């Protein structure tokens, strides 16, 4: 009988050798096929005896469970062939990244929280569409609930959770994705920029550390640097902003190292407060790396009245665009009424951080199963 050793799957066999995949860590090894002649690809085996050297291990291969299927194994389009190898290695790398992220926040004295994923009010942001679930919705971000915790006295919190956004599917999007959000009471978004630098330093492999520290520019500087000569000033309204930003500015960000762009125009403030002394810009930043947008962060808006005004504007805009008008989160507004401490919060796309850390080019390489693979 086998005693506690690793179990392997037989991927292939020749006259003399077996190619085995270790179920512990997805690693592969070649071993001599001496032993049971009946062993076939697909079987689950273990290796008896002392020697377990990678090549030509002399241990005896013993079947623990035969593969009952009569189809060839692994089938070219079968699950094992599709997922084995680099995908499994990346999922292990993902696990290490997530552990390092958690450790970073534990070491900083943060509390990990879990807020509801199923909510009556999914957020009114004009260009985010929620996925309905019964008469309620899946969250597009956990921000309302986390800010209520801030108001209730939890000053340093983080969360790793699934978020859901209808219709977002590409090499960098999946309708269901993993978000990391963290909040610091008493801080502004400058502190969060420093957090990002240190978090990335903790997570990225040695060879990628040279992309740090981040380069920090304001949106005005980014337009002056990257936009064509006739568009070097940030436009006064959203309609003019997007085409220039998306065609001329954003494609240049995060191509070499890590770029942080701060001081967004106030018409794109979302839940950020305006900058004291310059109300034309909001204290919001986005971080770009590997050609991807990875982080969105604010010095949080804590004024209940301004928040109500922005919600009303967002709702009106949603109606204009023919989008569903979600209910306003009154409990969130009530928390603002009772007073939120000055605070800053950041949202980071964790799948994309794993893509960056593992040099992957598609989101599907770093998640177990995408929406198309369920």
């Amino acid at each position, binding site marked *: 009988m086998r005693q506690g050793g690793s179990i392997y799957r037989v991927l292939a066999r020749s006259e003399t050798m077996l190619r085995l995949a270790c179920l512990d860590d997805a690693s592969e090894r070649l071993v001599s096929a001496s032993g049971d002649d009946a062993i076939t690809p697909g079987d689950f085996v273990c290796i008896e005896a002392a020697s377990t050297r990678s090549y030509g291990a002399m241990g005896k291969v013993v079947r623990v469970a035969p593969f009952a299927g009569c189809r060839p194994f692994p089938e070219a389009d079968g699950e094992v062939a599709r997922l084995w190898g680099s995908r499994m290695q990346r999922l292990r790398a993902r696990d290490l990244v997530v552990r390092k992220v958690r450790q970073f926040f534990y070491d900083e004295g943060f509390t990990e929280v879990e807020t509801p994923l199923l909510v009556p009010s999914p957020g009114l942001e004009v260009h985010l569409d929620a996925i309905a679930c019964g008469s309620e919705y899946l969250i597009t971000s956990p921000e309302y609930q986390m800010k209520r915790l801030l108001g209730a006295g939890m000053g340093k919190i983080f969360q790793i959770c699934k978020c859901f956004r209808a219709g*977002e599917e590409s090499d960098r*999007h999946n309708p269901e994705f993993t978000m990391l959000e963290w909040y610091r009471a008493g801080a502004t978004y400058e502190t969060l920029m420093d957090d990002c630098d240190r978090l990335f330093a903790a997570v990225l492999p040695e060879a990628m550390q040279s992309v740090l520290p981040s380069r920090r520019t304001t949106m005005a500087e980014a337009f002056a640097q990257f936009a064509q000569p006739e568009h070097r000033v940030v436009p006064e309204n959203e309609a003019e902003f*997007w085409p220039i930003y998306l065609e001329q500015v954003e494609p240049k960000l995060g191509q070499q190292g890590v770029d942080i762009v701060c001081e967004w125009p106030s018409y794109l403030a979302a839940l950020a407060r305006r900058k004291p002394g310059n109300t034309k810009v909001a204290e919001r930043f986005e971080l770009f790396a590997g050609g991807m*947008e990875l982080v969105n962060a604010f010095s949080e808006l804590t004024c209940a009245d301004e928040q109500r005004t922005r919600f009303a504007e967002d709702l009106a805009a949603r109606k204009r665009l023919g989008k569903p008008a979600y209910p306003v989160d009154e409990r969130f507004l009530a928390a603002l009424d009772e007073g939120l401490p000055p605070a800053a919060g950041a949202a980071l796309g964790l799948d994309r951080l794993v893509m960056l850390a593992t040099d992957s080019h598609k989101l599907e390489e770093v998640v177990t199963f995408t929406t198309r693979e369920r």
Partner: protein
Amino acid sequence: MYDTSDLRKGLKVLVDGAPYIVVEAQFVKPGKGAAFTRTKMKNLLTGRVIEQNIRSGEKLAPADVEDRAMQYLFKEGDAFVFMDLGNYEQLHISAEMVGEAALFLKDNTELQVMLFNSRPVGVTLPTFMELKVIESEPGVKGDTATGASKQAKLESGATIQVPLFINQGDVLKIDTRTGQYVERVSR
């Protein structure tokens, strides 16, 4: 109708009444901005490639385009007559529509005819065709002043540049995309 989420490489859509094939499609969603799909599309009639951003939620009409295998039969006046290998029906295509492909057409050639709204709009020759030389001056040894090539007229009507060793009656392999000589198949 197609949604922007249907936009994939190879999809055929109508843009301003013309059929296009999607060459590239990338979903873009700025954090706080409206989502759109950045596309590159090729006009199937002119070959011109356009770049277009299509907002999420917009609809696109499918283009009724299909490639059908046909065989060239003969020329009749200004038109070329083909037979649809699927249903054996005959089809007349104007010389204008056949365009430069006419220079390499030879009886019984099997090729692809593109139909747009069931009407022929273009023909695609096999990439390589074997054609006989019907006219070519004998090559002059040592004459490299002309880049060591000379002209040869093919049975299909095209005149192309060929190496000096090619003689009348040789069968040549031609790349129909460029109209260039590839190799001699037989003497």
